[in-house]
């Protein structure tokens, strides 16, 4: 029988997977704004593909943060204080990005729009990059002392392995976003997005393989769960190859499903590698944070379980419904932003 601590570890993992899957493509669209959009109309078109969704997608991150705080206060406290600067920069990026969607269309001056387009670009580039770096660093182990505090030096955060992790997540989000664009647009923009994605997928494959190799060399997770992880990474490779094949055949929906699977498996593998730890100490295994010493008490977990399992079906239901309402491709006639 699953213990509540295990259940909450899985729920936090699901929330992060949901965040990377959903916000992943709108980060990708945000980056594509500068890389793909040639003029203002095209950029508006791109923004409108994620218009009704991006805000709710971001709530997955907030909920993941809230759930971590509630279920594993020590995990939340150690991670958030330990990654103070990366998180501060990520917050700045998310703040800028969020208002930019709203602000950019309010004044029809090209400098104004250009400015906010760049804010959206960096606001969409930095969060996946920083989360990629942060999760790789967590997997590699951070200097956590006896009182659960991280006293990291620069190279604990930034090194070859974490940079590969950061770039892998970023290009994966961009690919996911480009395929989302092919799903939501028509004509020239769609064609260009597809062509771009077909080239980009090789980079994604390269960085994912590099990340797996790095993980093998820099972390202990293969030593712990080698077989399971090998199976997962094999599935990642297969899904990525299939995504490429589906794109060639212009089966965009299936290609999108495949990049979604890549994201879900890749993020899921990090949590599988961690389990039952939630933060790894590079100083001593005794200082590791686990789903037990980082968790809230049984009463709190029970309350949270009842509340979230009651609410989650409704939340998923209306979110899926909103995607159903806006299932039609975005055209120039219907631009709200």
């Amino acid at each position, binding site marked *: 029988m699953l213990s509540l601590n295990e259940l909450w570890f899985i729920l936090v993992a699901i929330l992060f997977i949901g965040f990377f899957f959903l916000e992943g493509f709108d980060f990708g669209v945000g980056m594509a704004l500068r890389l793909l959009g040639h003029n203002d109309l095209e950029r508006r078109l791109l923004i409108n593909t994620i*218009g*009704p969704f991006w*805000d*709710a997608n*971001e*709530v997955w991150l*907030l*909920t993941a*943060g*809230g759930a971590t*705080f*509630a*279920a*594993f*206060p*020590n995990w*939340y*406290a*150690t*991670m*958030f*204080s*330990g990654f*103070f*600067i990366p*998180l*501060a920069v990520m*917050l*700045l990026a*998310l*703040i*800028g990005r*969020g*208002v930019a969607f*709203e*602000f950019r269309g*309010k*004044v029809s001056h090209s400098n104004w729009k250009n400015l906010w387009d760049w804010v959206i670009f960096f606001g969409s580039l930095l969060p996946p990059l920083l989360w990629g770096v942060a999760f790789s660093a967590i997997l590699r182990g951070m200097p956590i002392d006896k*009182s*659960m*505090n991280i*006293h990291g030096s620069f190279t604990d955060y930034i090194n070859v392995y974490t940079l590969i992790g950061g770039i892998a997540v970023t290009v994966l989000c961009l690919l996911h976003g480009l395929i989302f664009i092919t799903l939501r647009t028509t004509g020239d923009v769609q064609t260009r997005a597809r062509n771009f994605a077909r080239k980009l997928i090789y980079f994604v494959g390269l960085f994912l393989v590099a990340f797996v190799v790095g993980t093998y060399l820099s972390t202990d997770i293969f030593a712990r769960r080698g077989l399971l992880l090998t199976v997962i990474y094999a599935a990642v490779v297969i899904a990525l190859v299939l995504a490429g094949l589906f794109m060639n055949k212009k089966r965009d929906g299936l290609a999108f499903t495949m990049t979604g699977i890549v994201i879900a498996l890749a993020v899921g593998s990090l949590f599988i590698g961690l389990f039952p730890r939630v933060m790894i100490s590079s100083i001593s295994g005794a200082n590791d944070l686990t789903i037990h010493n980082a968790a*809230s*008490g049984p*009463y*709190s977990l029970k*309350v*949270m379980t009842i*509340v*979230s399992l009651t*609410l*989650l079906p409704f*939340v998923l239901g*209306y*979110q899926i419904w*909103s995607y159903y*309402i*806006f299932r039609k491709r975005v055209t120039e006639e*219907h631009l*709200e932003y």
Partner: protein
Amino acid sequence: MDTLLLSRIQFASTTLFHFIFVPLSIGLVFLIAIMETMYVVKKKDVYKEMAKFWGHLFLINFAVGVVTGILQEFQFGMNWSNYSRFVGDVFGAPLAIEALLAFFMESTFIGLWIFGWDRLSKPIHLLSIWLVSIGTMISAFWILAANSFMQHPVGMVIRNGRAEMNDFFALIKNGQLWVEFPHTILGSFATGAFFIAGVSAFNLLKKRNLDFFKRSFNIAITIGVITGIGLALVGHEQAQYLVKTQPMKMAASEGLWQDAGERGDWTVTASIDEKNHKNTGEIKIPYLLNFLSYGKFTGNVKGMENIQKQYVEKYGEGNYIPPVKTTFWSFRIMTIAGGIMCLLGLYGAYLVWRKKVLVKTWFLRLMIPAIFLPFIGSSTGWIMTEIGRQPWTVFGYMQTADGVSPNVSAGSMLFALLSFSFMYAILAGVMVYLFVRVIKKGPAKPTVEELNSNDPFDGEDFHAFAE
């Protein structure tokens, strides 16, 4: 500068900034939902235009409120990790529920509302904006449940060196929450109402879109007067609750060093000497303090020196007196702002009833700066609530100084504080600029008054202005 001071400054400034947008969002979306309801019920396009025009302003404001809110959830862990470890078991739950129950609802249905004008049926579109409105209130409920726990910790035991939840329903039933929540929601409605009333007054003075802005003004002033009076009543309840649960904060907000005695003089104004525990130049009203504290004219409100002695016995050596001047004056500024709002609301409602709004140009002129009153009220109200609780962060259990992250350097915190301040300054500037633009541009199209209408907000003589 040390990390504690930097963290305090960051928390205070980012939270106050966030709470400029929150009440305006809660208030505006509630009024917009009412307007759209009138559109669906009365089938008059002017109400649709109203929902759309005020919706533009709401969306700009909402965006800033949302993004500044992300920071709020993160900075507990970033700047106050010891606090997070201590309270997470209790405090985390309302935050997680807020995200799951409110944030998803707000963000999904605001998307449906913005993009759904042509795609959704009228009732479903209307339902969307009401769900956003309800979402903002649910959000307020849960974050205030968390805050109420800090003011008046209930439903928990100290175990394993931290606060652990043992009664979830006690958290929800917390008496503090049930005075704080209505006060905040009414204050938010008033914020939206005075904003719409003020902007409408400005346009009425300019004689632009008279029908449009008169209707907006009427709806706003109606909500304004109801919430204004409600605020005063709930505020009174809250003060009585405060005397029971946090007597020190009450005494500080009254500048009361010694017990007040049987007569219960209420100090209107005083020059406070925090060092020597003395006030000079006091103006006092007898018996009023007893009424404010207990709802009757007898009693004896305890002074700070007395409470300090009790707390030293109970919690050990230390200074348990909060910054008195700040608490004293923020309380007064809040009540004055609220009082003026009540008067303006009452007079405005009278003018609407007598159909004389357009002729009283001095009143319309007054309503423009009155936009700021609710903001002043809520900011000073929160300053009093939070500063008045010091030195505690969780009353009676953890002091603010013990909550700060021990492993974050002052340099990192300074970087965060400076960059957030810089970012927020830009946001504030852009927001004001965009607000002015949208207001100047006005509604999409001027609307024509329908003369034969049963609308209770109709019928004011439009030539009144020329008379």
